[in-house]
């Protein structure tokens, strides 16, 4: 285990504020985790073996800096994608509606692409209609509540598959 290489990895972690770093090379794997904070502050950053081997430590640090906090491209990507599902939870107590009015079309359906400003649904509380925004980019994978159903705080409403970008 090359000490200089280890030092470069630690510097990489600090520069990118990573809590955990996993590197696999030639069948060997090293995992570095910062002590103290048991909650990971970001997704574990995995350097695919090809990238770690081909690039010298300085260049790897540079490449990693640009790609930090994002899923790695290449072979790692497929494994990451399945894990990148996000739940939209209700921020309030009320009644869930899928469209602005009974006659209108639904805001979204399964399979629709959404952006940060896309309205997903309305939660009505005390005669006030509250629009719930996606606040992320992706695709609607699941709708967990039926139209007109009562929802409580924290109740999962939608599953969105997040996309990069």
């Amino acid at each position: 285990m090359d000490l200089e290489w280890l030092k470069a990895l630690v510097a990489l972690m600090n520069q990118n504020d990573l809590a955990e770093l996993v590197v696999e090379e030639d069948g060997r794997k090293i995992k570095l985790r910062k002590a103290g904070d048991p909650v990971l502050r970001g997704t574990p950053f995995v350097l695919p073996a090809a990238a770690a081997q081909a690039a010298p430590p300085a260049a790897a640090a540079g490449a990693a800096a640009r790609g930090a906090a994002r899923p790695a491209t290449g072979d790692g990507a497929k494994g990451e994608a399945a894990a990148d599902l996000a739940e939209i939870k209700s921020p309030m107590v009320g009644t869930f509606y899928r469209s602005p009015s009974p006659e209108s079309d639904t805001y979204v359906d399964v399979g629709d692409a959404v952006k940060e400003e896309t309205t997903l649904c309305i939660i009505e509380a005390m005669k006030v209609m509250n629009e719930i925004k996606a606040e992320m980019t992706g695709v609607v994978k699941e709708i967990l509540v039926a139209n007109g159903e009562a929802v409580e705080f924290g109740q999962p409403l939608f599953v969105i598959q997040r996309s990069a970008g």
Partner: protein
Amino acid sequence: MFRRILIANRGEIALRVLRACKELGIEVVCVYSQEDRDAIYLRQADETICIGPGPSATSYLDIARILSSAEVGDVEAIHPGYGFLSENAHFAEVCRSCGIEFIGPAPESIALMGNKARARTIAREVGVPVTPGSETTVQSEEQGLEVARSIGYPVMIKAAAGGGGRGMRVAHSDIGFVNAFLAARSEAEAAFKDGSIYIEKFIERARHVEIQVMGDRHGNLVHLGERDCSIQRRHQKLIEESPSPAIDPDLRRRMGEAALALARAARYENAGTLEFLVDREKNFYFMEMNTRIQVEHPVTELVTGIDLVKEQIRVASGEPLSFRQEDVRLSGAAIECRINAEDAENGFKPCPGKIDVYFPPGGPGVRVDSHVYAGFRISPCYDSMVGKVIVHRQTREEAIRVMRRALGELVVEGVKTTAALCREILSSLRFERGDIHTAFVEEHFLNR
């Protein structure tokens, strides 16, 4: 009678109200914060609604969330418990305008009697004695001196905007007064950004004796006797009892009449408590009114045999009181000890945390009102109450003996509690003799 009620509270009082509803055949909707999601009493509710994250401001104090839950839960009434929104006149008003019954007094009564200065004015108007004091705030030490001399020493110098015992000083003479006045004023300015001061007679060695009242919508208003709550620490009650060892039937009658006069003037409905100070000469002075059900209500329930929470619900649904004044009799003696998760040896620092082992006392005459269980987490978001142990026996001596036995049986491991301190107080000769006052705990137990 209501078909469905929402309980806008948590912990032991939520469980207390839930029990009353179950017995009355009323469906219950319980709201809860994420912090309370493991509360065991939620299992007994017909419906539970999560209203927000832990902090009270975004959960139990949030009127919009509570009312949305009432709407979604399709309830006819809300029981506010104690604390939180129970004395919030605006909340009571909003309930009314939404067509939901608020189980408590009318918003106007809450606003009127909840204002300490207005309540004292009403008391003067109906001839109920109040602690002598300045009618308004005092602007200068010279004015203060005049007031102090006319009231008579010793006097209490109090911050009008104050609370929690801060911004208060006692003065025993003219010399002490000026210094105390200036100190109180600067402390008030620093702590509350408001240096307004008022002066009150300081009643030494006073007892805190409160009268429970209950009114319905048909003009019936009854008092249910007194509770002596002199065992306090920093104005927080620790032990309460009924009857008061210092109150004879004649004094009870006079205080009861005073309490009813005040409640009548406020057109009071539902449960309420009038607090008085009783001095060594057995003069009583009105202090303030609590326009809600109180923590220590079980003490009155046990000596009168009347279920106060059920009565609250009946009255709110339009039924007349199920008893008259002549039916109210105090039988035997009841004592309550509040068990809080606090470190009595270290300034009563709250001790939130997980209760690892919990064994409540039992046996004849012992009632335990508690929501905790082994594995339950006392949250830092809310008060530190673990539960209340209440004992009812034929005599005060027996009640004290049984309470000591019960507190000895109680096991709470994982957090420190005030149980041992309560037991110590109950073992003191002076408590046995009934020779207590509001400074008793601080003088005899806490200066070590």
